[in-house]
């Protein structure tokens, strides 16, 4: 699913190449910390290279593999809070709270 340069991230692609915020947030809540830590470590290690790769293309004309890589980076951002702040998937003390993203950029 990903450009060949990022084959190291391929094991995470099926789970984390998700096109909408709603899917990414839901996936985060239903994942274990071990799963997210493994993804975080692998993606952070090549994060700068991945951004530089996507940056070669115009946002409107991105090849599918670069789009997948962008979606993977969005997921990295989503799960980074579980890893860097909370040590758990959900924001602490937010059992009943939700905040649905009802309008998001198309790309």
């Amino acid at each position, binding site marked *: 699913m990903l450009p060949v340069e990022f084959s190291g991230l391929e094991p995470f692609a099926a789970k984390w190449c998700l096109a909408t915020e709603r899917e990414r947030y839901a996936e985060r809540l239903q994942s274990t910390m071990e799963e997210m830590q493994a993804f975080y470590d692998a993606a952070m290690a090549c994060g700068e290279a991945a*951004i530089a790769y996507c940056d070669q293309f115009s946002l409107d004309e991105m090849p599918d593999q670069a789009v997948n890589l962008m979606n993977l980076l969005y997921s990295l951002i989503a799960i980074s809070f579980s890893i860097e702040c909370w040590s758990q998937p959900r924001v602490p003390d*937010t059992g009943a709270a939700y905040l*649905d993203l009802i309008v998001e950029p198309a*790309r």
Partner: protein
Amino acid sequence: MARWPKPTEGSWTEHFGLSTEPISYEDSISPSFYELEREAIFKRAWLNVGRDDQLPRNGSYFTKEITAARTSVILVRDGSEVRAFHNVCRHRGNKLVWDDYPGEETHGVCRQFVCKYHGWRYGTDGQLNFVQQEDQFFNLDKSQCGLLPVHCDVWEGFVFVNLAEQPAQSLREFLGPMMTGLDGYPFGLMTERFTYRAEIRSNWKLYMDAFQEFYHAPVLHQKQTPPDWSGPALKNGFEAPHYQIDGPHRLVSTAGIRLYELPENMRKPIEGLTRSGNFGPWDPPELGEMPPGLNPAGCDPWGLDSFQMFPNFTILIWSLGWYLTYHYWPTSYNTHIFESTLYFVPPKTARERLALEMAATTFKEYGLQDANTLEATQTMLESRAVTTFPLCDQEVLCRHLHKVTGEWVDDYRRGIEVSA
């Protein structure tokens, strides 16, 4: 020891002539007070319902449910005009524009509005253009049966309605010099949007209060920053360099930091990677000169200005070249719909787009923390076990909102007594 100079009166609270006594939250837990607010405030004040770029072409429309004012409004582009109408068919009172669920908002483009019930048709100018089997009616004058107009005006692209028969002030008068000090801010360039929505189980004013003081930030949001940051932040607490009040509206302005100059132990790794975070993207777009109403204390670096517009609308402008809005739409005395939209200049590169994603994701993490305290507060206020609450000088704007709300309700009550 105050880190920022206080006004000569010794505090912002006294500077604005506000009481320093503990306040009651009865106005947030009383069903009968809410009924008065509906008439006194939501049927009288100018209410922001969106932006004019949501109505890009002739016939573009959206509906806005204003439960507090017991109505639904249609906003529509009619040529160069933005018009507003009560969303009700003149024939038998059916809601005119809705899809699937009558209580849900909708949007689209049309040449005319057609009632689902008996097919009456209205132009985007509100005129009744067609009546099914017109010859069956008695003395029906179509020219007198157009959609019921609602006062509507646009300021800097923000579309406002006023449900009063005759508003006491024009929109511009109501906005006043503090809000119109933002004239010329490049709102129109910021069309890339993220809109969030939630139903909150608290009175609408409690969420306004949550976002009009930053005294809570080092405590409630402590874990969103590394310990090397949050430790000193908690120890020092929060102080705003500047507060401003103009009529029913309020402003808090904060100092900023140059995030990109911080050592790595003061920021999260993902912030370093995306060059973005809570304050927004670190590499802001070039926007030119800012209007004089912005950064009124002249902070350098400056953080943000949060304009709290009465009754239920906030425009928060960040120094890093973007802004967000909050709306709090009451649905009962202890529930409301919260909406927030983040507005950015459309990104040109993948790197810029990722920085926006980081800012928006961070916003949600903070917002979730803020949202969940509200139900906890509402339920315990309703216990009435404690009935007065001390507010500090950094909570001066909360004090002002509750005072102004009380004044509008009192004015309304007096008006009823006079007319009775």
